[in-house]
């Protein structure tokens, strides 16, 4: 394996992991506050199709990215309206969002299947991007990827190092107590649901504007669901979520590596590997205290209605 290949692999692995990381960070923020939104797949697809359509029609990448984020946030608001406002079952609401998002995105995007788009160009940071092996991967990526890294940093700081994080944790651990302490539980949960869904929408935009700049139905291919699992695997810590997402980014470009090594394998069996890896990781880490589902926010997915 030569140096160029390794550099390319790293470059592609980071690009493959970014949509997953964005979505998983969004899930993490919402789940820390106790909001369990299973509709990630639908939100991501809506983000992807919106970004692609807006970008194709206006020619502006930033408008496309903004639109994706906005659509994501409004789907989060829809979810919060159902679960926080109308006390609907969150599992069913999330599934409805997944089905609805998948259907609507296919519908909206049907005229755009196969239409070409250049994709957001990569930056080249002078000198640094010429470094061997890691230069292209770390310093020659597109602006959205650097935005994702910034968001990861901000998420980590806010969740684990700020008073806001403390308040969110309280809401996710024990909304009853949080309410008695004067914290506005429903408002905070609505906000985190929107922020989380906006990040998933952004992850969708990354898919259709950067990673594979085109639109096909169901192009997220289960990343929304995998992101949900990533958060469980990472034990609800920001660092773990980012690490797990990029690890999976690496696994998902396994096929490129194998092609290059001269192994051949059915593309369908290869397509299965991320899910199998994910299941295996769930099994292996299930017994480990630091990672297991026992670390889940205590009130995750439980509706709370403040009543006197």
């Amino acid at each position, binding site marked *: 394996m030569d140096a160029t290949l390794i550099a390319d692999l790293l470059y592609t692995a980071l690009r493959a992991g970014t949509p997953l990381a964005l979505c998983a960070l969004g899930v993490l923020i919402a789940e820390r506050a106790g909001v369990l939104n299973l509709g990630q797949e639908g939100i991501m697809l809506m983000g992807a199709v919106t970004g692609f359509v807006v970008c194709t029609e206006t020619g502006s990448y930033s408008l496309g990215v903004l639109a994706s984020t906005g659509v994501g946030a409004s789907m989060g608001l829809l979810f919060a309206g159902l679960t926080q406002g109308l006390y609907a079952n969150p*599992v069913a609401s999330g599934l409805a969002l997944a*089905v609805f998002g998948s259907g609507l995105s296919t519908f909206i995007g*049907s005229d755009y299947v196969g239409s070409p788009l250049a994709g957001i160009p990569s930056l080249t940071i002078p000198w640094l991007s010429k470094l061997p092996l890691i230069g292209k991967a770390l310093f020659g990526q597109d602006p959205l990827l650097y935005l994702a890294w910034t968001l990861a940093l901000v998420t980590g700081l806010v969740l684990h190092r700020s008073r806001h994080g403390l308040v969110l944790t309280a809401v996710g651990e024990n909304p009853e107590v949080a309410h008695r302490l004067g914290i506005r539980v429903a408002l905070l949960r609505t906000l985190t649901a929107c922020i989380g869904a906006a990040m998933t929408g952004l992850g969708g935009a990354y898919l259709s504007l950067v990673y594979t700049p085109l639109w096909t139905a169901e192009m997220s291919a289960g990343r929304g*669901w995998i992101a949900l699992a990533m958060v469980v695997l990472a034990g609800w810590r920001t660092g773990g979520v980012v690490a797990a997402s990029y690890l999976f980014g690496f696994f998902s470009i396994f096929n490129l590596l194998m092609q290059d090594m001269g192994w051949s394998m059915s593309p369908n069996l290869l397509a299965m590997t991320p*899910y199998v890896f994910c299941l295996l990781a*769930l099994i292996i880490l299930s017994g480990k205290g630091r990672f297991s*589902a026992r670390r889940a926010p205590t009130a995750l997915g439980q509706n709370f209605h403040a009543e006197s």
Partner: protein
Amino acid sequence: MQLQKRAKPARHMLWLAPVLAIMLTLLTGTALFAALGLSPLPVLKAFFVDPVRDAYGVSELLLKVTPLLLCATGLSLCFRARVWNIGAEGQFLLGSLCGGAVALWFNDENLAGSARIGAVGAAVAAGIAGGMFWAGLVALLRHRFNCSEILTSIMLNYVALNLLLWAVHGPLKDPDGFSFPESALLVDALLLPSVVDGYRTHVGFVLALLLLVALGVIGSRTLLGFQLRVVGESAAAARYAGFHEGRLLWLVLLACGGLAGLAGAFEVLGPVGQVTPHLSSGYGFAAIIVVFLGRGHPLGILLAALLQALTFIGGENLQIEFGLPKSIAFIFQGLLLFYLLAADVLVNYRLVISGDSVAQVQG
């Protein structure tokens, strides 16, 4: 306007809320079609009425209802015990793959008599076993490794889909089928008999109805149904009563997997007649909505499955008549579930206009 908790759940709302949700979905659909520049009435007619204008249409509807009913029956067992199995789709696909593989093994023009019955029986059994195996994995992961059944069953859906794709591209591919990723067509002897000659509704529909009745009996008149409800209501109460949570988990998942696998085998041995990549139109997911819409009650499930099947056929009809993508069916399904979840709030809460409530307090 604000929500006020009712002293006790309103029983009439349990039935009214789905009706309200359907009306709202239709209204939204009307608005959607109008926004697309289509005149809503003909489109809605093509969507909801045209598919069932004649006996053939009804037969096609029942053909689509069959897998929905089978999956929904299994899922309603799971959901009753609050086991959130989202994997009926994967269990369906594995059932169709296993059933199809066994059927292809026996795929011979000269099949007749008892060999024919044996072959069909073996294919059906393989379908059931495949679905049970796939659901059994979910049960194992939840019971032994404490993994969320929502996540594992979803992952297994994708694995099952890719297994199916691999099979039709590889081992099950018809050698004479040019380069299409499809198996050979099954001989007529292997196909399920129709209920009425000339129509495609097969005996699987009758079986699905019987199983639905069985579900009703289990739910209301047996200790097992009671145990499932208790586990769903409160795991602590179930342990206190001495019910075996683990055993019930395995039971509902295996039952659901078996039924979904059966539905998958029936699709191969029924309307499709071969193993193709597009065996399921998302029946496993749609069945989840069916169970919620039908409130887990057999009659409700039947009505909801009819409605859901209608959206599938109507979606295809719209594609043919108006050139609209058939994914519109999923939009309607999602909308319907949204509206139902929103309308359900009226079961436990009443809507109070705040002006009124102030007046009441002062008065």
